[in-house]
């Protein structure tokens, strides 16, 4: 264990802990912007700077591991000046289009600017030339809103292990670009971690404000993994799918289907009751009737042509246990080995 003091309070943490985490464990909050709990510290925003006694330079709390005996100050005039300058520089060009931004109301930048009371920016420079059109049919990128915190780049690399996007260029003109089109799977991990409205979902643009939607926790049905997600519901329609950081087996991650494949829920064409064809026409039926019909048919086919006339094809959307039961059913009840699975095809 390493002992240190933060704002005069003695703290004891395991070696390797960052100053930011140590402060948090002591109930001391340090402002952060680029830091994200699921990513290795990035260190791009410098909001978390702290002073360490005996060191001339402030240091970023999120990237600096604790050292025995140090004394840390998390707030001072100097630190406030640096933090404010960091935010002001972002605001030099960040558009104030909050009223039409999907992130309005849950934007970290908005919160911080509010918290620091930044009402004017005295710095000026023209907008950077950003040619980048990092976008997929599902993900929309707003280069003007991008603060280049690099959370997206880091998430793509660290969480997904893909590295489809990266920072390119130099200085003010640097931008987030797709470095490998083929690698991007549109999983949306990037937009999940984006603290501002720079990465938004293309499907749900302008459909609901974050504070108006109801978030309904549920389990994704696309495969047997059991990812936890939240349906964002407004007027009984699903507007978007989000996750809670660290929650469930997926810890907040989703794949392209889980995150974007929700439109079927409110689709007009979606079946919600079984249909039985009678006289060449589908009619609504009860589950009991439908299941009895299927059982009867199986039975008669089996009697007429033997069990091998029947084959079963199971689905990757089922769990292992369900798939196990299914093959058991085919073998023990129907009496055939004709059983396969869509993921194997």
């Amino acid at each position, binding site marked *: 264990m390493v002992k240190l003091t933060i704002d005069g309070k003695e703290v004891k943490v395991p070696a390797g802990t960052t100053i930011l985490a140590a402060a948090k464990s002591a109930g001391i909050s340090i402002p952060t912007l680029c830091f994200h709990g699921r990513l290795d510290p990035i*260190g*791009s925003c*410098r909001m978390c700077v702290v002073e360490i006694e005996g*060191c001339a*330079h402030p240091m970023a709390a999120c990237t600096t591991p604790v050292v025995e005996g140090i004394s840390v100050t998390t707030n001072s005039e100097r630190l406030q*000046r640096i933090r404010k300058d960091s935010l002001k*520089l972002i605001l030099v060009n960040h558009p104030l289009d909050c009223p039409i931004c999907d992130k309005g109301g849950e934007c970290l930048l908005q919160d911080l600017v509010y918290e620091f009371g930044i009402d004017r920016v005295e710095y000026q*420079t023209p907008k950077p030339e950003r040619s980048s059109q990092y976008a997929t049919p599902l993900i929309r990128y707003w280069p003007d809103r991008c603060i280049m915190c690099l959370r997206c780049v880091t998430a793509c690399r660290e969480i997904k292990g893909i590295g489809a996007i990266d920072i390119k260029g130099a200085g003010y003109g640097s931008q987030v670009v797709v470095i490998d089109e083929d690698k991007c799977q549109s999983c949306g991990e990037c937009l999940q971690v984006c603290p501002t409205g720079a990465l938004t979902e293309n499907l749900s643009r302008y459909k609901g404000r974050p504070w108006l939607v109801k978030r309904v926790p549920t389990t994704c049905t696309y495969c047997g993994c059991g990812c936890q997600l939240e349906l964002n519901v407004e007027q009984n329609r699903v507007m978007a799918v989000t996750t809670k950081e660290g929650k469930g087996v997926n810890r907040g991650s989703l794949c392209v289907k889980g995150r974007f494949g929700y439109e079927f829920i409110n689709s007009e064409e979606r079946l919600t009751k079984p249909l039985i064809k009678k006289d060449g026409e589908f009619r609504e039926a009860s589950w009991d009737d439908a299941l009895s019909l299927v059982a009867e048919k199986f039975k008669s086919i089996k009697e007429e042509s033997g069990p091998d006339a029947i084959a079963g094809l199971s689905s990757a959307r089922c769990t292992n246990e369900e798939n196990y039961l299914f093959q058991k059913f085919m073998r023990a009840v129907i009496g055939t080995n004709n059983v396969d699975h869509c993921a194997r095809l």
Partner: protein
Amino acid sequence: MAEILFSSWGGEVVDNRGKEPQDFETVGKVSLPEYFQQDEEIKALIGWYGIVLRSAEVNVVDLCRTYMEEVQQQSCGKCFLCRIGTRVIADTLGRLCRGQGRPADLELIAGLAESISESSKCNIGQSGPLPLLHALEHFADDFAAAAGGAAVPAGKYRSRLTAPCMDACPIHLDIPTYVECIKEGKFQESLEVIRERLPLPGVVGRVCVRPCEEHCRRANLDEAISIKFLKRFVADYELDHGREPEYQVVPSAKTGKVAIVGAGPAGVTCAYHLARKGHQVTIYERLGEPGGMSAVGIPDYRLPRQILRHEVEMIQKLGVTIHYNTEVGKDVKLSQLEADFDAVFVAIGAHLSSSMRVEGEDAGYQGFIPGVKYLLDINSGIDPYPEGKKVVVVGGGNVAIDCVRCSFRIGKEDVNLVYRRTEKEMPADDVEIHDAKEEKVNFHFLTQPIKVLAENGKVVGLECIKMQLGEPDESGRRRPEPVEGSEFVIDCDIVVPAIGQTIDLSLLEGVDNVKTTRWHTIVVNEDTKQTENPKIFSAGDCETGPGALITACAGGRKAAFNIDKFINDEPLVATENDYFDKFFSQVKVYDPQEEIGFIGGRPRYQLKMLPPDTRKYTFDEVEQGFSPQEAMAEADRCLRCYRVATIAVG
């Protein structure tokens, strides 16, 4: 030397403005060269430690504007303050210089410069605005005048990016970038950065003498970054994953045929760069395998042979032909190559052992084996003298250490090293000395051999005399002097002199205008590696005398660029980069005294090693590489010490 008017370099403020020349104070922190290149004077320097002004003609506002513009161009964009803040400052200075400034601007940029410098993520942002703050303080009148609308004349400037490690590296690898790539898990990209200059990352990543680590700024906090082993890690990672490098070939306008003599580090690096420019390269090598001294000198427990072979094979895939077992001078004449090829690169290394000037060394005794020959045999799987069991190696360099450490590995029982100065003066790598001690080599310091003793033509002992340290000599090391009457004998049956190598120049017979020095090295133009015979170039140990692998590679690379120019009928002259290299070597990019102002407390990650008792008897590689996690954590310690220098010239 022309006097300095003002300097704030490294925290030392010397202000001679308005003083009579005889009252000028001298500047201690920096020595500013007078000329950048011939006929181009250096009038001012602005850079990471401050401003140095030689000429009153320089407009400091314009100097700052140029410099801050360059800092902005070099900002990596990975932290807010540096990315946007330096843009705002450069723009504001631009307005001031165009006469569109406002008095309020000055306070604005001063405050911003402070915030950027105090909190940026890396040294570009930390050091970048620092000299601007000095300028605003000490040249306030100039800034006020500019803000008031006074004309600001534009000067002529040159700027360059550097870093302490990068500057110290003879081949100037872009170390901060390749280390940063590793930190971000981009191992392939990291290798590509290295291979831009160096085709042997696996070899150099194992045995480099690493001047970069001696100049690593992190050492001012705790310990230097493990730059060498990070290089090894990315090379190994590629190999372990069965990948092969994809080299880009960009043919020059004119391509030609080049002969290279010697497949050592200098030869293969030159071949690699020439092949990437589309030239047809043929290497002639006396031995049966590539690598030169790194194959037959450096033992396998430090550098497994397959690593070297693999990296040379990859170079051969670029279309380079190697004729092994072909000695130039004997099997084919150098004059013939000169006639048949558009250019010839001579990289024959230094393979003759220097003499010790002691009695009995020329008598041809059995058991008297020069160091280079001793290692060559061992590396070829031969015990040079199976009868002998007790070894004395003479010398204090890496070759001597390799000889002693190899001796155990071929079953010698008693292994001694004789060196005439103390351990502190030994030129061998500290790590190597430490490892040899762990393996229980007997060190005899302050000991000088005087006679090889023999019976029936076989070595039986080495007579030595004790030494003591006297006055410092021209190298700054205290000169050892014999202690009278202190002669003694070390019983042994093998004596291995390893005090240095010289160069076998016999191949030069029959070619014109290749000059040599009295130390038997080949004379070349240091910027172009061309000899006085325009078709013949040379570098590596045969140009510098026995040196280090990376220096040989750097020489090979420089030769390749100039051979390419030669074939393309371009003038062979020093480049701006060459001049900046010289400039930096005088101005000094690394200051071991610099107070960094951060907390350290993060020692470097150590490699796992085979234990001394096991490793001492095998040629298996002693050092085991980093795991990806260890490599990334080690790379995360890097401070990314990029910094910009701008000079006003005229």
